[in-house]
C-alpha cells in the first residue's frame, strides 16, 4: 500500500489504548459467547464460558500486538 507515513502514524497514535480495550472486549464477547452457547446447549456445565472469555482476551491482546508491530 502506498499510504504516506505521517498518515499511518496519526491513525496509530490516536486512541491506541481504546482500540486495545475494544479488541479485548470484542474477543471476550465473541469467544465468551461461543463458549456460553456451547455450555448451554452441548455440555450443560460451566466449562467453556470462562475458557472462551480468557481465549477471547488473549486473542484481543494478540491482535493489538500485531497491529502495533505492523505500524512499527
Amino acid at each position, binding site marked *: 500500500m502506498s499510504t504516506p507515513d505521517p*498518515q499511518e502514524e*496519526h491513525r496509530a497514535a490516536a*486512541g491506541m489504548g481504546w*482500540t486495545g480495550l475494544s479488541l479485548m472486549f*470484542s474477543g471476550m464477547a465473541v469467544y465468551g459467547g461461543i463458549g456460553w452457547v456451547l455450555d448451554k446447549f452441548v455440555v450443560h456445565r460451566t466449562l467453556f464460558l470462562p475458557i472462551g472469555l480468557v481465549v477471547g482476551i488473549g486473542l484481543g491482546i494478540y*491482535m493489538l500486538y*500485531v*497491529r502495533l508491530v505492523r505500524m512499527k
Partner: protein
Amino acid sequence: MAADLVLGSDLVQGSEPHCKIFSGCGFPAPGLHSFHYEPLWAIEFGPFALTKPVLLVLIITVLIAIAITAAFRKAKLVPRGFQNIVELFYDFIRIGICRDVIGKGGEKWAPYLATLFLFIFFMNVMGIVPGAQIAPTSITAFTWPFAIMSYLIMWAVGIKHQGLGGYVKNALVPPGAPAWVLPILSPIELLSTFVFRPVTLAVRLFANMFAGHILILIFSVAAEYWLIPHIGAAVAGVSFAMVLVLTAFEFVVQILQAYIFTVLTASYIGEAMHGH
C-alpha cells in the same frame, strides 16, 4: 429556581442548610444526582424539557453560527483579525487532520470536522465557564448523537467507496495478522469495528467530562464543608487550591478530548475510504 440556574442541583442541595463538618449532616458527596437538572420555567414537551444543559447547547450553537458568519462578512483575501484566527483554526483542521489523517479526498470533510471540533470543544469548555459550570458532554445523552453521526458517516463513506460487500470484507481483515489465523480473528475485528467504535467514541468523551466534573465538584463541596473557624479554613483553602489546579487540568482535557473525537472520526472516515 434562579439558584438552580447558577449553581446546579447538587450545590443547591448542599447549600440549603449550609452543611459543614461536625454539624452532623455528613459529607454531601456529588454523584449522578449532580448531573440531574430540573426543567427551567416548567417548559416541558412530553419527554423533552428545556433544562440548563439543553439551554447551553442552544446558546453555543447560536454563538458559533453568529461568530463564524461574522468573521467572514467582509472577507479579505489577506485575512486580518478575527477572520485570521478562524482561518488559522480551519487550516489546522484541513491540513493537520483532513490531509494528514484521511489523505486523498479528505479535504471535503474539513467543514464537518471543523464544526464537530468547535461544537464539542465549546460544549466541553462550558464545564469550567463560571455561571454555566456544566459541560453538556458530561451527560451521556449528548455524546451518543455525536458518536452515532460519526458511525453513520463511516458506513455511508464505506459503502460509497468500497460497496457494501467490499467494505465489510475489507473490515474483516485485521491489519498485520498472518493469513492462516484470519478465521479466528475476523469475528473479533468485525465486532470491534462495527459495534465498539461508536460505543468507545461516545463513552470516551462522556467519561472524561463526567470524571472531570465530579473531581471539581468533590473539591468544591469539600472546601465549603470544611469552612469552619480556624483549622477547618486551612483544609478548605487547600481544597480550593485543588479546585484551581483541577480547573486548569480540566481545560487541557477538554481540548484534548475534542481533538481526539475529531481525529478518530477522521481516521474512521479515511479507513472507510481507502481500506486499512
